[in-house]
């Protein structure tokens, strides 16, 4: 720490070791060169056009040196020049240490000789930079957990490659909402309305990987970006600037994925990644969508797949026959001895059995399905037995599924025609996002339906009447098959406006919330059978008690008939208390993919309520957007 003898001049200039720099002349230069309009300045400050002026996305006053900095790029720039010239005795708190990307850009744009600037001791900054050692950048996409609502759309973060050969030894930059709420509903509500602060954090990549791969069982996709070391360095400097700076975190738009686009723009200012999101009609940013943006910008060099622990276990189990699978399971779960395999299995099978037992033990331990004590007592002996069997020629590679950015686009609209109860109609339906059980699974998690804001309207020409059929705010249907190694619960929840026949046989609109839980099983590679217990809440003025509450079973089967053709056959019954009645239904839906952009849906259904039966059939064309 250099102790400098400083005389503060009225102009606010400071001397480091050489001649002083005069703030006034620098500010004049800023104006002459119109630096306040520079792209990189707007990127680093997260400004975007608003009305006739600008506004920064950053909500933390600490980020700005000018009182009106959030909305005035020029004033903020002038104040930043002042801050840059402050005496160096603030150490790590000095502008140059705290906002290194900003100050480097200023120094460069103003042709200032860095030697005559104040030179604070940036201990923390330099230590962090040395640790992270930025050389390359990778966009990381942990896909959705196949049965976890919280991870719905996946997540994105950045991995900063270092001089280490091993990727595990690099660092991750993560943007996340800071929350201590454990209640999912509160979490969702606050998240939707921006009540959480979002923060950037930088941490070892293996920690993030452990979190996704072992704790949450989410597959991870990595997209290597073609950024130069210098660009990556600027990206890391900007993330340093954002350390501890809060922005209101909105799950749908100002989220993990969106903020990372800013970091990429900071790396390479000529990229235009964020503006299209402001320009387009929709107000949400879906992580897989940002991968498409980054890919379209020509940034992606290579794609890598990292299967989660659960995916690896599934794959390894599929390589063994039934008896070996059971043996492996018994070693992990029942504590069967790992040492007496030789009599019944080949050397390769023995290795596979023990590898699988070990991974399964770790899986169960991460889910707290086995006590630590018991886990320790079993895990090491399994590995010790495995270590005596030598090394496989090749590591087991899990076959790579279709990457998420090659899946269908999340939005969907459809036009169709059909008949209900012998009346013809035209139908329009629209969905904001994301994926339906009938949509092609490529790039998505199988059996995980998440529809978010969808509506269906019909026009009946003979009565010249246009009516809303339904409006769902959310419609989640999570089917997770059970087998020897995994026993997840499948579940669903749907809420919004629905229409069904009421007492007088007329189809009426009501508010409905439907939820259920149950089990699913694979009947082979292309068929999934499920059984659920449903609860159904209806609210309508037409009910005597304004409310009707029902329960009953649902049975369904989802079939992948060919690579392009899917069918979903399902039926069920609901028995209502309050306003007693029953409702039975049976539906066969089929979807045929014509291309990545769309397909054809044929739907036939029958329902019976208040002793009235109605059947309908409909054919529609869908398009993804």
């Amino acid at each position: 720490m250099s102790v400098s003898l400083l005389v503060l001049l009225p102009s606010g200039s400071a001397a480091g070791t050489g001649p002083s720099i005069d703030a006034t002349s620098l500010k004049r230069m800023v104006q002459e060169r119109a630096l306040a309009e520079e792209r990189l300045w707007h990127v680093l400050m997260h400004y975007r056009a608003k009305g006739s002026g600008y506004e920064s996305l950053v909500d933390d006053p600490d980020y700005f040196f000018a009182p009106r900095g959030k909305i005035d790029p020029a004033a903020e720039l002038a104040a930043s020049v002042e801050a840059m010239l402050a005496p160096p005795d603030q150490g790590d708190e000095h502008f140059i240490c705290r906002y290194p990307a900003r100050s480097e850009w200023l120094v460069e744009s103003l042709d200032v000789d860095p030697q005559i600037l104040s030179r604070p001791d940036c201990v923390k900054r330099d230590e962090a930079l040395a640790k992270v050692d930025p050389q390359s950048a990778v966009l990381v996409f942990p896909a959705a957990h196949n049965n976890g609502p919280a991870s719905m759309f996946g997540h994105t973060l950045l991995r900063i490659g270092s001089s280490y050969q091993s990727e595990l030894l690099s660092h991750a930059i993560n943007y996340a909402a800071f929350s201590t709420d454990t209640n999912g509903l509160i979490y969702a509500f606050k998240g939707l309305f921006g009540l959480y602060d979002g923060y950037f954090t930088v941490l070892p990549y293996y920690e993030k990987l452990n979190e996704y791969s072992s704790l949450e069982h989410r597959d991870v996709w990595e997209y290597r970006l073609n950024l130069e070391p210098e660009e990556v360095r600027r990206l890391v400097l900007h993330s340093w600037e954002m350390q501890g700076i809060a922005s209101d975190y909105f799950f749908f738009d100002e989220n993990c994925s969106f903020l990372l686009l800013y970091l990429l723009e900071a790396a390479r200012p000529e990229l235009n990644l964020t503006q299209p999101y402001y320009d387009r009609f929709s107000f949400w940013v879906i992580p897989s969508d940002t991968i498409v943006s980054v890919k379209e910008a020509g940034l992606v060099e290579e794609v890598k797949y990292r299967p989660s622990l659960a995916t690896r276990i599934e794959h390894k189990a599929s390589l063994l026959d039934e008896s070996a699978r059971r043996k492996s399971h018994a070693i992990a779960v029942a504590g069967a001895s790992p040492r007496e395999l030789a009599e019944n299995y080949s050397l390769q099978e023995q290795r596979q059995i023990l590898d699988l037992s070990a991974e399964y033990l770790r899986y169960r331990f991460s889910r707290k399905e086995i006590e630590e004590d018991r886990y320790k007592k079993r895990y090491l002996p399994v590995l010790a037995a495995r270590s005596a069997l030598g090394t496989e020629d090749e590591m087991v590679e899990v076959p790579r599924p279709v990457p998420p950015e090659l899946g269908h686009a999340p939005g969907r609209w459809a036009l169709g025609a059909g008949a209900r109860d012998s009346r013809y109609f035209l139908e329009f339906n629209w969905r904001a996002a994301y994926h339906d059980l009938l949509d092609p699974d490529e790039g998505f998690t199988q059996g995980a339906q998440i529809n978010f804001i969808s509506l269906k309207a019909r026009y009946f020409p003979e009565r010249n009447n246009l009516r809303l059929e339904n409006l769902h705010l959310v419609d989640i249907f999570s089917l997770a098959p059970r087998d020897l190694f995994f026993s997840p619960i499948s579940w669903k929840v749907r809420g919004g406006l629905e229409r069904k026949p009421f007492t007088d046989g007329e189809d009426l609109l009501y508010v409905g919330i439907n939820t259920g839980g149950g089990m699913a099983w694979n009947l082979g590679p292309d068929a999934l059978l499920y059984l659920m217990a449903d609860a159904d809440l209806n609210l309508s003025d037409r009910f005597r008690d304004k409310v009707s509450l029902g329960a009953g079973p649902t049975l369904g089967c989802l079939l992948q008939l060919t690579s392009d053709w899917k069918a979903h056959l399902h039926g069920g019954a609901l028995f209502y208390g309050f306003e007693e009645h029953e409702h039975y239904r049976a539906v066969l839906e089929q979807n045929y993919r014509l291309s990545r952009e769309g397909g054809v849906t044929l739907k036939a259904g029958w329902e019976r309520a208040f002793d009235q039966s109605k059947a309908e059939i409909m054919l529609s064309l869908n398009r993804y957007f």
Partner: protein
Amino acid sequence: MRKLGVALCAAVLMTSVSTLALAAPYGTAGCGLGSVLFKDEPGGVQIFAATTNATFGNQTFGITTGTLNCGDPIWVTGSAETKQFVAHNMDALAADIAAGQGETLDAFAELMEVPVDQRAAFAETLQKNFDQVFTSDQVVMAEVIDNTALLTR
């Protein structure tokens, strides 16, 4: 077991001709989450991952000692990074060593500064001597590093 290991290490240390620096004192927080990296950073608080409901990082796996009494390797001057890595990845590392290969093992070899052309031998030695690296289910990070150094130097 632990004492025996320490005694053994100490004996080897004393008879060793190579001059080995003793490990530098390690942060008081042991080798828990974030004790080494950016420990004073604002915002480095426990963060809920944006799209999940799980706090990050601090899970203790079975044979990881977690955040306390990791001890320090006495035989090898393990960098803070190496200690943190082993403490956090003990279970995966054990599995890789047993299998004789894997990404966690590769990273470990790199941290232990094993030259590229010697990594296959390094992996093989550890696999063959698995019981001497992971001496018991109570083994701690420092011992794993020490045992590795003993076997492969």
